[in-house]
Structures are given as structure tokens and as C-alpha cells.
């Protein structure tokens, strides 16, 4: 039986998904289910003066209307150290509390929850709830608050005196870049079906990236015991980070179930999806100083991001140059503009997608100023150490990414002159950029149950948000247990399963796989003990490290002839099941920097007269350690590249700052790329063996694929047109004039 790790393996849950067998949070049913519909505030800031639900209550089928005035008890919260509303990934601050009091802190904030016998009645009645507000002046415009932005409490490091070095540099570039506010727009709406199991016990089917995070949050908010709240999320229809934190919808659904003492389903509308977290609009300023030969001498990277008035959300935007390029001096600064909006949240490669966009465009501009090929500039400044922490990398095959990506793309044939390449009425541009992300890993537990019939069940509370977690878990378990893939069943997305952090940060593949390996080793050890109890055991004297599980047998690594079928060993000992649970923990203080890298090459064609932009070709070469499944991993990178095209050309959440309200709150008006916008995408995985990062050498591929894509496209647009647009998205009007 050939190993499945490293092969293009189709999703084990694919059949269930395409046949509709896979059930999502809003599809679970229960007798007597009630339906909720949320009324959102129409103002951005102020107080609720009056709520009149009398009309709504008269609608046939309406059961109740919950508001801050009549809701059941919930914890106080409010920013204390042990604030029960703070979840595992909450930023600093005091999380939003739905229906807590009369304060309005963002437009669309839930102010009432209508509960009815049918979804239609609930939704209609929600339109009949009258709310009066005492409005207060709001500010939702990042640009208006940029000068009042506050510095992050955690100061980043400086290296040398970047200001002086910049002033003295032979060649300089300084520019300001802007990345628009974006929403994740997963296909599946946020939804919770809360089953009232009686006696106050609840089963919560929720759309989330972290069932145990939601469980813990609900226990805090409603002062419940963990054994009384089970959170289940077997399938997730896309999340991109939006499901890392518990949403107000799950809190409201549980509140309703407790108030009514019956099962409740609450599904957000697409418009309400825009009242949740988002990628913060960010202003970035990058200044680069270099010698005439391109050697970097100074890097300054400053960011001003938007956040809410009640939480300070920020991710690392500014220090990526220290991971990528050698520079004697560097200075980073990150500020937050507090606005009357909901709190931003993680969205695919948070911080890097935005920060590296600015850095990589600035590098391109520096290359132009230096009259140097942009790829050559990267080579000349290539850093073998992470200079922020002054550490070596566990592995960094970025040079190979550059080389293989450039070759596949044909970069050497590029005419450096902007506007020099044409195809009929279109200007052709080639641009490139670097991508970088972290190779994180988090303590995770896995349980394996092996039965004598040769079947194994692998269980962990992690999520599969469409990335392929089910599949890689099955693959790793199959290989480690020496069983065929279809003898493995995977259980995940259930808070009663062994502990897992939220699925995010691209850490799941590494964390879960290593935990499977360690649990499989425990199984192997137990099997070996059983095998050694057999008369004349051929494995007598062997240690667990001397044997492997192969093709349903316990086999000596030295001598394949010395083997015992697993079934025989179990049967002989009269054991019909073996269960083991272990955790993989990771020592990240081992003096190494852990990163994934990529090189992106993009071709655009721009109609010279009209400015219509097409991204005709993208090559993404990725170094991300061991690739568990080349098929699902490639899908991750392709999807990310499409996300990068959206970031570069289409995506922007539009706020009317007078109203303080998001206006393009649906997927007809908020544009993501459609098929016509996506042409050739070639994905290359560069071989990157790494036995330091973790025992299996896995780094994760969920986010690296988007980082740098927007920069490569923006740089290509400059190369095509000679016009530098620094504000994303690059819509055709920005190319005018």
C-alpha cells in the first residue's frame, strides 16, 4: 500500500458535499423549532430611546421579541480581566455584547430578536419593530481619524537608526498605500441551530472555526457548565477567518433557546453578514533606502488600521521586511484609528495580506528607481535570517520559489520598460512579488480508536472549513497506522472531542497531523505489546521505534519478514478495540523562525483606451514544508490567488460616512472575482524538507497563497501602463488620466 501523504488525494467528504448529505448549521432540525430574525440598528452611534414591538407581536406566529429590556440574564462583562465575553482569539478590549444595553456602537448592531413559529413570520415581524434612537455624531472614515490614531500598546522592535540611514541613502523610495476594508463573504451564512435537550442542556449546531471556543464563550456569557453545552460544526461553507470568534448570532440563538426553553434556529441575512468582522481598511507607508547597487540600508513601515471603539484589533502588518530582506536599519510603527464600526477580525493572512502588499509594491518602486530588475533586487537583499528576532529559519526555500516561479513564468523575457509589451489594443504587464506567512502550530489532542476489523476512527475537535482537514487527517492516520484510506473515519467539529484550538493561522495541518502521529505511535506501542505476548512472537525484543505499521501488520523495520498482523495480535489478546489519546505540543522557543514563503508572478492585460484590466496569468511558487495532499493544497493556493485578484481589482466594502453605514452589503454589489476574471493559475510547490519545524515537517498552506498576489498584480499594472496606483482595489477609473 503506497503512502497517501504527498499525493493528490480527493476529498474524503467530497461525495457527502456534492450529494447534499453533508449538513450545515442551518440544516439541523428539531421538533418544535422556533425561528429568529434580528432587527439591526439603523444608526452608527447613540442610544436606543424606545422600542415598540407591539406590531411585531401581533403578527401571526410570533412568539416573542427579545430586546435589552426583556432578555434573560447574561454575564456582565465590560472589559474586566476575566471578561466572559472574551474568547480565545479576542483582541484587547471589551467585546460586543448583543442585546446587552441601550448603547449603539455600530450600524446594523442587533437591537431586537424576533422569535416566531416560522422563519417568514419572524422576518416579516422584524420589519414591524419600531425603534427610536437618540443619535450621537459618529465617525466611520479611517482617513478622517488617521491623525488621531493611537499607537499599539505592544511596541515593535527597531534596528539601528532608520531615519538617518534613509536620509543618507543613495536611492530612496517612500510611498503611501491603501488597502480597502474587505468582508470575507463566505457562501454559507452565519447560522446556529440550538437544540433544547431539556434541563437547560443545549446542543448548538453552529457555523464556526472553533467549536470549543464557542462552547467556552457560551459558558461564560450564560454562566453555564461545559457539560451542558455541546457545540457541533461538522461542515462549514467557507469562513476565511470570519468564523474564528463566536458571532453575536450564536449568542442570540442560545439566549432565545434559554428564554423560550425550546429549540431555535437563527440565520443571518446576507446584509447582516456585513455587520460582522472584516479585514480592516489600512493605510500603509513604506520608505526604503538603498545603495546604488540595490543593497537595502533602511526600511520604515508604518500602518494605520481601522478598529472599533471597544476593541483594538491589529495583526502584524509592518515587520515582514525583517523576515524577507537584509537591512541594517528598520523601524516599524502601527497605529489604530478607533471608529464607530464593528471590530475587524482575521481574514486570510491578516496583517500580511495588507502589509506585504505595501512592502512589495514599494520594493517594485525601488527597483524602478534603481533601474534594476525587481526579481534581482529581491535576490540582492535575500535574508537567510529573520532579523527581527535575529534567528535562523527552520527552512527557507524562497530562493527556489523565485527560481522555479520565474522559469515557469518566463520572467527573463520581460522588457523592463513600462508600456513596452502589447497584444493588440491591450498593454501587457508583468509583475512579481514575494509572499510570506508564519508556520504556526498549536497544542492539539487527537484520539484514535482502532478496532480489530482493521478500521480506525480519528477524532479531534478541530474544524474543516472547506480546506480539506477531513482528508489530510484520514491520510496521515492511514499512513501512520498502515491502513487503507477508506478504513479511516474522521470525526471533527464537536466540542466533546479531544481539545483543539480554533482552525486558523494555517496551523491546523501541522498541529493535527503531528498529534495524529503521536497518537498513532501510542497505538503502535500498545499493539507491539500485544504482539509480543503471542507465543514465539517474531517481534520479541523489538521496541516501538523498531517497528512500523504497514499494510495491516506490525512489521520490523530491520526485517520485513518479522511481522504480526494487527488483527492477530488483537485477537490473541482478546482485545477488540484500542483507544489512545495524546497531544502534540510544540516548542516554539527553540531559537528558530518558522515561515512559509512564496514568489508570485502575474501577467495583466490592460485595454489602453478603456482601462479594463484582465489578469491573464499567475504563477505562484510556494515553499511550505511538506505538502500533505497536493490536490487540496493546490486548491488552497488557487483559491488564495483568486482572493488576491479580488483584493487587487474588486473587493471593497463601501461605507456611507454620513450615515455610518455599509451600503454595498450584498454579493451583487460587493464584488469578488467571477470566472471571467480568473484565467491561468499555475501552482508550484517547491521541495522544502524541514525536520526542525515539527516532526512531520508540515507548515500549512491556508494563507500563504494570498500574500503578495495583490502586489504582483499592482506591479504588473504599473509595468503595463506606466501608472502607479497605490490604492486598492485598482478599478479602471484609477487608471484614468
Amino acid at each position, binding site marked *: 500500500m503506497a503512502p497517501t501523504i504527498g499525493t493528490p488525494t480527493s476529498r474524503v467528504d467530497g461525495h457527502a458535499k456534492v450529494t447534499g448529505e453533508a449538513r450545515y448549521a442551518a440544516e439541523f432540525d428539531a421538533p418544535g423549532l422556533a425561528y429568529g430574525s434580528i432587527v439591526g440598528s*439603523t444608526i452608527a452611534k447613540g442610544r436606543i430611546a424606545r422600542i415598540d414591538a407591539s406590531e411585531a407581536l401581533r403578527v401571526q406566529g410570533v412568539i416573542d421579541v427579545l430586546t435589552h429590556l426583556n432578555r434573560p440574564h447574561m454575564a456582565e462583562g465590560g472589559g474586566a480581566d476575566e471578561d466572559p465575553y472574551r474568547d480565545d482569539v479576542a483582541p484587547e478590549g471589551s467585546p460586543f455584547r448583543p442585546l446587552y444595553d441601550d448603547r449603539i456602537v455600530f*450600524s446594523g448592531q442587533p437591537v431586537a430578536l424576533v422569535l416566531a413559529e416560522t422563519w*417568514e413570520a419572524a*422576518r*416579516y415581524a422584524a*420589519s414591524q419593530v419600531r425603534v427610536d434612537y437618540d443619535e450621537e455624531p459618529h465617525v466611520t472614515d479611517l482617513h478622517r481619524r488617521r491623525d488621531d490614531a493611537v499607537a499599539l500598546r505592544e511596541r515593535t522592535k527597531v534596528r539601528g537608526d532608520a531615519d538617518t540611514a534613509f536620509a543618507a541613502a543613495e536611492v530612496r523610495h517612500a510611498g503611501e498605500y491603501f488597502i480597502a476594508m474587505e468582508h470575507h463573504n463566505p457562501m454559507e451564512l452565519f447560522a446556529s441551530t440550538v437544540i433544547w435537550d431539556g434541563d437547560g442542556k443545549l446542543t448548538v449546531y453552529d457555523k464556526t472555526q472553533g467549536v470549543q471556543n464557542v462552547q467556552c464563550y457560551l459558558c461564560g456569557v450564560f454562566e453555564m457548565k461545559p457539560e451542558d453545552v455541546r457545540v457541533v460544526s461538522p461542515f462549514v461553507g467557507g469562513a476565511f477567518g470570519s468564523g474564528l470568534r463566536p458571532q453575536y448570532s450564536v449568542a442570540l440563538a442560545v439566549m432565545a433557546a434559554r428564554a423560550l426553553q425550546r429549540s431555535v434556529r437563527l440565520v443571518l441575512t446576507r*446584509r447582516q453578514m456585513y455587520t460582522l468582522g472584516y479585514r480592516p481598511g489600512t493605510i500603509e507607508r513604506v520608505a526604503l533606502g538603498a545603495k546604488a547597487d540595490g543593497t537595502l540600508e533602511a526600511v520604515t513601515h508604518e500602518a494605520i488600521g481601522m478598529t472599533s471603539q471597544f476593541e483594538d484589533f491589529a495583526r502584524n502588518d509592518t515587520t515582514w521586511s525583517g523576515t524577507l530582506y537584509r537591512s541594517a536599519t528598520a523601524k516599524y510603527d502601527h497605529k489604530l484609528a478607533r471608529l464607530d464600526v464593528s471590530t475587524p477580525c482575521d481574514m486570510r493572512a491578516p496583517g500580511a495580506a495588507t502589509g506585504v502588499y505595501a512592502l512589495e509594491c514599494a520594493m517594485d518602486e525601488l527597483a524602478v528607481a534603481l533601474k534594476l530588475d525587481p526579481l534581482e533586487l529581491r535576490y540582492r537583499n535575500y535574508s537567510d535570517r529573520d532579523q527581527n528576532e535575529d534567528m535562523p529559519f527552520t527552512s527557507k526555500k524562497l530562493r527556489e520559489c523565485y527560481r522555479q516561479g520565474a522559469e515557469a513564468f518566463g520572467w527573463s523575457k520581460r522588457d523592463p520598460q513600462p508600456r513596452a509589451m502589447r497584444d493588440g*489594443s*491591450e498593454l501587457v504587464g508583468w509583475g512579481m512579488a514575494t509572499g510570506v506567512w508564519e508556520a504556526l502550530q498549536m497544542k492539539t489532542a487527537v484520539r484514535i480508536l482502532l478496532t480489530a476489523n482493521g478500521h480506525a476512527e480519528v477524532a479531534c475537535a478541530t474544524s474543516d472549513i472547506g480546506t480539506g482537514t477531513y482528508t489530510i487527517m484520514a491520510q496521515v492516520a492511514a499512513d501512520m497506522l498502515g491502513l487503507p484510506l477508506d478504513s479511516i473515519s474522521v470525526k471533527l467539529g464537536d466540542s466533546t472531542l479531544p481539545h483543539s484550538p480554533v482552525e486558523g493561522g494555517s496551523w491546523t495541518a501541522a498541529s493535527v497531523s503531528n498529534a495524529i502521529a503521536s497518537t498513532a505511535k501510542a497505538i503502535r506501542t500498545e499493539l507491539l505489546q500485544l504482539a509480543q505476548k503471542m507465543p514465539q512472537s517474531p517481534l520479541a525484543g523489538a521496541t516501538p521505534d523498531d517497528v512500523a505499521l504497514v499494510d495491516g501488520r506490525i512489521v520490523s523495520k530491520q526485517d520485513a519478514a518479522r511481522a504480526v498482523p494487527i488483527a492477530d495480535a488483537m485477537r490473541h489478546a482478546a482485545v477488540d478495540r484500542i483507544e489512545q489519546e495524546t497531544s502534540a505540543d510544540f516548542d516554539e522557543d527553540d531559537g528558530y523562525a518558522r515561515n512559509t514563503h512564496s514568489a508570485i508572478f502575474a501577467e495583466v*492585460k490592460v*485595454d489602453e*483606451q*478603456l*482601462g*479594463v484590466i*484582465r489578469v491573464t496569468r499567475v504563477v505562484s511558487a510556494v515553499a511550505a514544508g511538506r505538502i500533505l495532499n497536493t490536490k487540496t493544497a493546490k486548491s488552497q493556493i488557487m483559491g488564495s490567488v483568486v482572493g488576491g485578484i479580488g483584493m487587487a*481589482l*474588486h473587493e471593497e466594502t*463601501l461605507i*456611507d460616512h*454620513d*450615515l455610518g*453605514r455599509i*451600503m*454595498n*452589503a*450584498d454579493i*451583487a*454589489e460587493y*464584488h469578488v*472575482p*467571477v*470566472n*471571467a*476574471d480568473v484565467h491561468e493559475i499555475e501552482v508550484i510547490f517547491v521541495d522544502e524538507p524541514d525536520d526542525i519545524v515539527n516532526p512531520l515537517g508540515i507548515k500549512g498552506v491556508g494563507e500563504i497563497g494570498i500574500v503578495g498576489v495583490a502586489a504582483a498584480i499592482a506591479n504588473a499594472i504599473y509595468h503595463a501602463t506606466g501608472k502607479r496606483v497605490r490604492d486598492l482595489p485598482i*478599478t*479602471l*477609473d484609477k487608471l*484614468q*488620466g
Partner: protein
Amino acid sequence: MIDFEYARASDVADAVRRIASDPTAKFIAGGTNLIDLMKGNVERPSRLIDISRLPLKTVEKTAAGGVVIGALVPNSDLSYHPLIEQQYPLLASAIRAGASQQLRNMASTGGNLLQRTRCYYFYDTATPCNKREPGSGCSAIKGLNRMHAILGTSDACIATHPSDMCVGLAALEAKVHVMGPGGERTIVFEDFHRLPGETPHLDTNLHPDEIVTTIELPARGFATNYTYLKIRDRLSYAFALVSVAAALELDGGTITEARLALGGVAHKPWRDPAAEAALRGQAGDQTSFARAADLLLRDAKRFAHNAFKIDLARRAIVRALTQAAQGTPQSQSDKKIR
């Protein structure tokens, strides 16, 4: 969504009778626009009169050499109908430039004419909008107006009509046949949609108790020199920033007849007789095209975010006329601009 009654019309006369007897009723055809608006609480009909099964689903030749199209012919069927593809490829192309295949499969010809603006504020009942709630104010004039009109605007409303098909129909000088309690009448396409003026809540001159039965195209189809060029923020499935239907008849290099209609720039498909007249008798070259574009845009008015549309429209007109003159119409399947 509001509580409403539902009834199916048995024939055209029944449909008219039903709508005339209830001013809060609405026809529903494909439902692709109306149902969205009902979900958003923007339209609140007390009753839906389903006309989707009325026998208005044929495309037939007229004695005059034109065609007559039933109001319930799905957009997809219309655009792939041999009579349309051969005689009016401009219309086929304009339809295919709109929405998505799935929507075009559902959407009806009549419904397409009566679809409402895509102005963000119109869709969000939490905001002031004169079109939705007369007298409440226009949020777009001082707000997000990048998608909005540059021609024929008023102080009350600067919305655009979103249809692509209608831009093609305007260029082809279609006629709209309607039936009301008083019998049939015909509205020339030019007069079907209205400018906002002081009454932006009225999109068209169709009376509330009338139904669109058929649309008639005259014989002249411009099947040789035409194009439909749509410029938008992504390459498919987005409303037009600017679209241009251009149709020419040429004698050698000289333009003998010209039609030019624009979408995405006004409250109705925009035609300008002066611009078309300026093309007639001229050589089909960049100079005459640019002059026509300038003429058509002479009164264009910009708002905070849509100033770019004026220059974009000028360039798009020139490009479309070039495509039409050269007989290289824009393809709606590969999105590369010809």
C-alpha cells in the same frame, strides 16, 4: 418578506382585471428583481399576480419584416432565438452582457424593462431615498454615487436604469405594446422609461393597471455593423459603469444611418438625436466618432465619485463605434475588448 396573496392570471384580460382592481398588487414574472425587493422590504405588494404562464412566449416575424416578442420570453431564449441572432445580433449581445446565465434563464422580457435601479440606497430601507419613499431625500447625491448617472439627472434622484437589454432595444427603436382596462396601446421605446425629474418614484410611463404584452422590433436590424460594449468593475456579472449599443449602416466608408444608445449613465437608456445626426453622412472614422461622443456628453454632469464616467463614456462610444464600423462586435463570452 411581507404577507401577500398570490393569484395566477388565466389570460391577459384576467391579469389586467386583477391589477386594475387592486392598486397594491404587482405582477410577477421571473421574480428575479421583485422577490429580492420584497425580501428587502422595498416593495410591499399585498398581492402577487403571477403572469409567468401567460401565452406571451413566442418570437414571431411581423408582416413589416420585423419581429414581435412576447413579454414572457425568457432573456436566455430571446438572446439565442434564431430570428434575434440573425436579424438583431445587437439585441442578442446586449442580453448576454447582462446578469448571469441563471438569472437570464429566469428573467422575462417584460420584467427586464421594469427592473428597478440598483442604487444602494434604494435597496436599504434604513436610508433616505426619494425613489423608494418620495420626499425623504436622495442619499446618493452627497453619498456613494460612483455608479450613478451623469445625464438627465435631477435634484431628486441620480439613479441609473440597470438594464442592458433595454439599451439594445432603444438603439433598435423598439415599440412596447401594452394592455390596460381601456384596451391596447403602444409606447415607443424612447417614451417608455422616464427621467427622474421631480417624480423619481416613477420609472416608466406604463400605467399601474397596464401589462406589457409584446415588444416589437422594426425590420431594420443593423446585423452587419453593430456592437454592444459594456464596461464594468469585473469582467462579468456586474452592472454597467457605462455601456454602449452602437449600430451603423455604411455606404462605402460613409455612415448612412447611426444609432447610439448608452446604459449606466442615466435613468433610462440614453439616446441623443443630435449625436446620431452628427454621424450621418460622415466618414466612419475617429474624428466623427469623437465628435458624436462629445455631442452626446455635452450636458454631462459629475458628482463626487462618478466624474470618471464622462471620460469613460466618451472613450467607450468611440470604441463601440469603431467596433461597429469595422464589423468586429464585442464578444460577450471572452471578455477581451475588441
